[in-house]
């Protein structure tokens, strides 16, 4: 074979081989490892899949945080002011997790509609709101119309 043509063949084969390996890996990895965000209203409406990894976020309901006395188990609810979803988590909560603040939990929804969380994320500083939560609240406020607007507006402002 002509050396230049052979060289091109090497290049093309390398590229094809490795990129097909990568595409295969990506397809495999994407299957189980991405998760979709659901606002509490959609979870309550039964739109969220049971037994699959999802994320749910909203404002932590005031007075809903219950800690166990002898373990690190925590139960709390998040709301978008239309519906709320109970979340159970065992472990250390982030520093900025608090009632009345935005939080996102990742985990699996069980048959009773409780999110068994494996990870809870709060914001990074006082002025920050997780964008999904901000969006969900925005949407819920729009749906509820003028009547409850100032209540949701309060949540938004925090």
């Amino acid at each position, binding site marked *: 074979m002509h050396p230049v043509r052979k060289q091109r063949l090497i290049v093309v084969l390398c590229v094809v081989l490795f990129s097909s390996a990568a595409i295969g890996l990506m397809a495999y990895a994407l299957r189980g490892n991405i998760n979709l*965000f659901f606002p509490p209203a959609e979870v309550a409406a039964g739109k969220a899949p049971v037994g699959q990894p999802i994320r749910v976020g909203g404002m932590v309901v005031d007075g809903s945080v219950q800690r166990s006395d002898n373990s690190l188990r925590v139960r709390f609810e998040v709301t978008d002011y239309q519906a709320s979803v109970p979340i159970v988590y065992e472990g*250390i909560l982030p520093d900025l997790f608090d009632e009345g603040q935005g939080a996102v939990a990742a985990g699996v929804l069980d048959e009773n509609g409780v999110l068994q969380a494996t990870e809870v994320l709060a914001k990074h500083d006082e002025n920050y709101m997780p964008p999904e939560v901000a969006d969900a609240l925005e949407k819920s406020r729009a749906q509820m119309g003028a009547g409850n607007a100032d209540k949701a507006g309060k949540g938004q402002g925090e």
Partner: protein
Amino acid sequence: MIPEFGHFALIIALCLAVLLATVPLWGAWRRNTGAMALAPGLAMGLLVFTGIAFVCLTTAFLQDDFSVEVVANNSNSLLPPIYKFSAVWGNHEGSLLLWVLILAVWTAAVALFSRELPLLVLSRVLAVMGFVAVGFLSFSLLTSNPFARLIPGTPADGQDLNPLLQDPGLIIHPPLLYMGYVGFSVAFAFAIAALLGGRLDASWARWSRPWTNIAWAFLTLGIMLGSWWAYYELGWGGWWFWDPVENASFMPWLAGTALLHSLAVTEKRGLFKSWTVLLAIFAFSLSLLGTFLVRSGVLTSVHAFATDPARGLFILVFLAIVVGGSLTLYALRAPAVNSRVSFAWLSRETLLLVNNVVFLVATLTVLFGTLFPLLMDALGQGKYSVGPPYFNAVFVPLMALLVPFMGLGPVSRWKRDSAQRWKAELLLPTLAALACGLTLPLLHGEYNLWVALALVLAGWLLLGLLRDVWFRLRAAPTLARGLRRTPASYWGMVLAHLGFAACVVGVVATSQYSIERDLKMEVGQAETLAGYRFEFVELANFRGPNYLADEARFVVSRNGEEVARLAPQKRRYLASNQIMTEAAIDAGLFRDLYVAMGEPVGQGGAWAIRLHYKPMVRWMWLGAIFMAVGGFVTVMDKRYRRQRAARAAGAGEVAHGAQA
């Protein structure tokens, strides 16, 4: 007065950048020596005026001038002075000013150290960098002016720097990272200059190689510091999260790694020229993309300071101009710089090609994972998140695939090599690596296949390199002669590859052997983890300069002997009322012990406590330091000095010509 002075200096810097981006380019086009020779002077001027602007902002921070908006939002009179200084870049506006300053430093460095370059090339390179400076200076001035005042309405005290950023690691992490990020603009500028001139030869590669290596080394250090900071500051003992912003700095690193290997082929063999140019464009575009992702607020992250759509749009447009423009230029000019040299299947060229393809594919998979949620959101398909499992599943096999080729690379020959020679060279190291790798995990008790695999791969790299070094030195008449004869670039390569091997071992051993436990603990209680007994001896209050803290004191012992005393804290910062976890770590070469406080549990004074046992986690960062040092060492190679000496001889003429 001082902030206005700084603002004014920044405007002058923009004017100089506009001149730098246009006049020398016009000079290069019309072959006007006078216009071209203005470039180095303009580059220096750019540095001086951005430097003045930066000093002005720093002064405002150090003097607690809360009439300046960024100071009021990101500093506080109680903040320790060193953090007032680092607060300069702990916010969107200031970090952008640092970006511009570092770009000016690189531009001036090119002007200063490249006197041996033909004036035509130098003026084009500097003009391209000037163009980038125009983009970022106008971004800073138009959308994120660091000198904006709060008059009237000056607050009595500032809102304080985000406590997460009040940390020694964060003082140098951004500057180092930016040195790397922005440093790729030099490689980019050389590539564009070469496309403009239509001359892509070995000397072009030789010029841009040291710059690329330095930028890459800085980026390596910057990423390493970021990872180390996350490990001890975020309080959950993780060191890499595949967070979009981490990816934003990691993608240029991956592309840069491909670039510096491809530059080696271009310099030594005159091959892969168009490919190298493309990689240079790609690496810098990824730096810009990273800046866009971080600065536009499209992402959720510690790094996302701003959420102003105008800012995002500005960078997006700039990104489009740079990427679109350079790719168009590439499409028009690249065929003209094709090469006609050949190589065989078994040769160093093929191995470096494998390196390039693997790193590029890795870059693309990370890019895909990072942009996928943004893409789906933009298409209205919902808010997805792509987590670490995706990245691990894709990235780890790719790197594992790379190592066998990486071991062969340094011992192989250019142009043509043979399987017999490889076998002769590497049979012994292979067997030794297999033996060591498969038996060493036995020492840990529980046998772990992944650790064994990592050790075999790292051993294969290490032993292959050692054998190669030994053969090189043995071939010389005396050891001293052998050492002297071996070029610095070779030692740099050896260091960097050893660093990579250390990283592989560190990453795999930490991921596989780490033990993590979240517990409820009271004073007097003890818990044993991997043979270490952690005893909670005391709970105390502590007052820092700008925070109050609860401090849990632990005594760690092993077989009855005290190993360390650890005192993690839970801090409440006074100005912002923000709560922060301060982990306590006993660091060691073979293991770290890590204690962090959660929150109080129940009424009895118990706390949620997080205990970690992390074996070999330091190897990862040590490996990264080795890689960076390797990058710096390659630049000391004689052949770049020779080039400089030759240039110094010719510099008289050029300078002469410049004045004429």
